[in-house]
């Protein structure tokens, strides 16, 4: 059972117009740069993208927005880019905003085979509209459903040929959750090593969740907010 693919173009084979795709990352940190580039090149349309953010004008999911590939974004925070705002206001793009913890937990629920979870996030707000709520121990919670995505596309630091993944620092974020949640999970890694190389105690995403893996190239890893202090 070969999980290893040569490159992003091969790894995203089969993704078609109208697909529901999860994309890992927080802002531009830990995003699957190679797969996004391949999706842009393939120019498939009418996509529903589940991703915490929508990239910036000229990078990340912003590149897909430029080509109007995205029908709907499901995110917690969007609009760091002008084209996004234009499409949203013109009605070309649909956006569903959900609390960040709810987004994360709905991914986890899918990966853990739990059809729904309870969270207090959004109780008493417009997020609660139309949702079932329930009181446990005197506190109100909303019932939120597990996501149902066709593909999950994630980025890891290291991976092995068995599909095991290790993430680096805060680039972990949504990646392991989405990796568990896709019907087909595609992982791009900075370094792909033979199985047996990684310490089995230190795997963040066990290979069972990963269907396709490849070593990415030319990572830009753009920084959105470069904040520094002066050397003393």
């Amino acid at each position, binding site marked *: 059972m070969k999980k290893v693919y040569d490159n992003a173009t091969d790894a995203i084979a089969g993704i078609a117009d109208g697909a529901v795709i999860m994309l890992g990352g*927080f*802002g*531009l*940190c*830990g995003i699957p740069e190679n797969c996004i580039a391949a999706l842009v090149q393939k120019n498939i349309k009418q996509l529903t993208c589940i991703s*915490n953010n929508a990239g910036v004008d000229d990078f990340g999911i912003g590149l897909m927005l430029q080509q109007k590939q995205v029908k709907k974004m499901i*995110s*917690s*925070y*969007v*609009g*760091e880019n002008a084209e996004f*705002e234009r499409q*949203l*206001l013109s009605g070309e793009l649909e956006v569903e*905003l959900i*609390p*960040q*913890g*709810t*987004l*994360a*937990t709905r*991914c*986890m629920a899918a990966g853990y085979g739990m059809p729904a979870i309870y*969270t*207090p*996030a*959004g*109780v*008493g*707000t*417009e*997020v609660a509209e139309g949702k079932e709520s329930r009181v446990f121990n005197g506190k109100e919670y909303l019932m939120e459903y597990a996501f149902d995505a066709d593909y999950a596309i994630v980025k890891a*630091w290291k991976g092995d040929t068995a599909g095991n993944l290790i*993430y*680096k*620092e*805060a*680039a*972990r*974020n*949504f*990646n*392991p*959750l989405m990796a568990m949640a896709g019907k087909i999970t595609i992982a791009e890694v900075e370094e792909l090593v033979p199985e047996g190389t990684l310490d089995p105690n230190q795997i*963040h995403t066990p290979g069972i969740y990963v269907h396709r893996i490849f070593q990415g190239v030319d990572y830009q*890893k*753009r*920084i*959105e*907010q*470069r*904040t*520094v*202090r*002066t*050397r003393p």
Partner: protein
Amino acid sequence: MALDKNQIAKRIAQELQDGYYVNLGIGIPTLVANYIPAGMDVVLQSENGLLGMGPFPFEGDEDPDLINAGKQTITTVPGSSFFDSAMSFGMIRAGKVDLTVLGAMEVSDQGDIANWKIPGKMVKGMGGAMDLVASAKNIIVAMMHTNPKGESKLLPQCTLPLTGKCCVKKIVTELAVLDVTPQGFKLLERAPGITTEEIISKTAGKLVVEGEIPEMQL
């Protein structure tokens, strides 16, 4: 004299206790990190998946994989750990984070908070704010007492779409420190030189003033 942003942060830092795990929002809350008392063990949580956030990196040391929830490049302190977003909000929901400090557009005298959406303006999203306000066991709001038009931000009811209901415990503004109580806002401290009358006049929600109100010690 009204406090500046750094003084608001400094006053909020007085609420910290040894051993606290704290989540600081964007803006004034971030500045609280600069006023953690020496020798006090306070660990900063960033909801994108980090415990043990340190200061900004020195120029040239920026690491694109190491950012906070404001997408700023940061560093870690010894004893830090990384985890995924589900665990991050899990520990928030489970009450493991002792204190959350965040900004607000409006707070009601029942502790409702609005800080994510202005109808008619482009909506960028709630990010983790709804999770934080719904889950944190202790929430302090850092904000200006009035908006740029001079209207009170401490209201009987929020006029903007809510981020969360009945969750704010304490408010620190440039003028005052107030608790949210079942009777409404309760004035605890005045900024140096600010009169109780000024605070009363700039607070639209129900305000409880009992006895002499002391000045803040900064």
